[in-house]
């Protein structure tokens, strides 16, 4: 169960997802994959490529375009003793199945007095950047992090993608794995073996001394670019990738801020009402006396995601926005 480092190769994020799914299918005999176009087509982003061939039609299912049905398939089959992997092609489609996610999947165990468990892994694809416009580009993790009974992870690197998928599938609770479509080609080292990234443990991606950046999902990569810029200004930023949003690793974040005295939260989701607010609230609750400046937030502006690349590139937070926010916060 330790974070393994055996035989790492360089793989893109998309293949790391596939390896994660494959590892689960190998180690969990009651795991299967179900979703729209996951079997024959291997998923619209190809991250189930080869899964049907290897595991056969008894374990990999194309479903109708019925998101509520798909989640119900997960909930019912989990209650019946399976460990389903269900696919929600785009995170935006959560709207079509929020009842099943929020009122059934998240609550069933509690409502039944703990007398059932639902080991469901849901993979879904979030984020903008491909000119897919308002209904195929959202980051809606704020909806699901607010729902007791669910766990939520957001892998940013190939290594984390594989390890978090395996951890999600080993967990006895419903876990939603929020993937990012602009990260599919990002490369990184991935061990061949099965390994898990413990749920609920943040990752200090880049240690630093006088500034904390908490960056979720793909924004972690932007934060690293920003940190290079900031370094030139004497800002030695520590970058924390929460990896799991629910349960959230408050301790790692707070510890960092107690050291650095300043924090910036970055997510791709709309800033207003986003998960960043929760992180800000927690930091100032736990580290108020250590703060030298208000905690800043970077997120998308208050509009749906625009189609035009000219607007979309302004819409999505990036390294420049992070640097600008940090400079403003630091009075630089």
């Amino acid at each position, binding site marked *: 169960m330790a974070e393994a480092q055996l035989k790492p190769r360089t793989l893109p994020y998309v293949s790391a997802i596939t390896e994660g799914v494959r590892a689960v299918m190998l180690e969990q005999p*009651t795991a*299967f994959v*179900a979703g729209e176009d996951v079997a024959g087509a291997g998923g619209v982003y190809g991250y189930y490529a080869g899964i049907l061939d290897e595991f056969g039609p*008894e374990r990999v*299912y194309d*479903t*109708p375009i*019925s*998101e*509520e*049905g798909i*989640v*119900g*398939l*997960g*909930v*019912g*089959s*989990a*209650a*019946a*003793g*399976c460990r*389903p992997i269900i696919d929600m092609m785009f995170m935006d489609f959560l709207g079509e199945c929020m*009842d*099943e996610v929020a*009122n*059934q999947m998240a609550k*069933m*165990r*509690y*409502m*039944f*007095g*703990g*007398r*059932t*468990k*639902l*080991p469901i892994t849901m993979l879904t694809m979030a984020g903008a950047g491909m000119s897919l416009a308002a209904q195929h580009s959202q980051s809606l993790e704020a909806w699901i992090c607010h729902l*007791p*009974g669910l*766990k939520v992870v957001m892998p940013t690197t190939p290594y984390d993608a594989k390890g978090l998928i395996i951890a999600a599938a080993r967990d*006895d*609770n419903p876990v939603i794995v929020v993937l990012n479509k602009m990260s599919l080609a990002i490369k990184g080292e991935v061990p061949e073996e099965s390994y898990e990234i413990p749920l609920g443990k943040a990752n200090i991606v880049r240690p630093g001394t006088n500034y904390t950046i908490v960056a979720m999902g793909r924004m972690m990569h932007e934060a690293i670019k920003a940190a290079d810029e900031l370094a030139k200004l004497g800002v030695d930023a520590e970058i924390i990738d929460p990896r799991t949003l629910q349960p959230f690793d408050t301790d790692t974040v707070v510890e960092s801020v107690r050291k650095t005295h300043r924090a910036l939260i970055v997510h791709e989701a709309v800033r207003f009402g986003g998960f960043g607010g929760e992180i800000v609230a927690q930091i100032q609750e736990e580290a108020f006396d250590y703060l030298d400046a208000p905690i800043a937030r970077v997120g998308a502006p208050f509009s749906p995601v625009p189609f035009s690349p000219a607007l979309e590139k302004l819409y999505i937070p990036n390294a420049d926005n992070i640097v600008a926010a940090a400079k403003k916060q630091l009075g630089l």
Partner: protein
Amino acid sequence: MSTQISNDTLIDMHRRMVRIRLFEETAGKMMEDGKIPGALHLYVGEEAVAGGVMVHLSDEDQITSTHRGHGHLIAKGGEFDQMFAELYGRSTGYCKGKGGSMHISNMELGILGANGIVGGGPPIAMGAAFGNKFLKNNKVAVCFFGDGASNEGSFHEAANMAGLYKLPVVFVCENNGFGEYTPQANHQAIVDVADRAAGYGMPGVIVDGMDAVAVYEAAGEAVDRARSGKGPTLLECKTYRFFDHVGVRGMGLTYRSDEEVERWKKRDPILLMEERLLEQKVLSAEQIKAVHDITSEEVLAGIKFAEESPFPDPSSLTEDVYA
């Protein structure tokens, strides 16, 4: 099959139906007396459906129930003690007091929960059937749902998937003619919910939901069909609820006439069943009375159990959220 119903089965169904009736009458009274909190949706009048279906199922088979769920649980073997305790919100209840009437469940009896969401059951039942087929465990899942629920998108998606994958599931529509206070004619343009079956590639069957034997026969076929791998059935049972949508007396609305209620009460499923038992000399009047008496005692014992049970410990508030 219709000729082969045994006396034991008749007795069994009758007992289940009487248990539902007496449980519900008392539960309704306790709610209206303020002893049971929240909202109870009572099953009185519809007992033949749960009774006629459930005799075909083992404890291993699953069901999904509805907001009107006590009858399903009782017919599938639910114990009054833990049921009343749940309705009273006590820690000894089936859900430790966390679920209440609308979420009452018992995984050991294969009951994947009552559901506060209309249309909440079908996707879960379909999923359970999918799981059963995957696990090759020979179990069948039965989904109870109302005429009102048949208009939820969730029903459509689940039914389509069940038909597509030929899942071992039976969709039992309890068509009592109303969704809350809205008559069927004001919520759908069709009279028979079974008309929807063809659109999912499954047979649609209509039975008299006040006649437990009719339900028994049709359900038997549907369950057999499911278990033998031939796929789902939509079984529509025409029935009626004798009490109001919530509780016994309800809100005093005039969405249905007294005559209509009385007309249906003439076909009280328990009355019909007892006439049959007497006529076919399966049980004597005394024996029937004994069933009622024993059940009444069990109801009283259940109430006592519930009332003497402790409320859940404060510490349990945030327990059972995660495994």
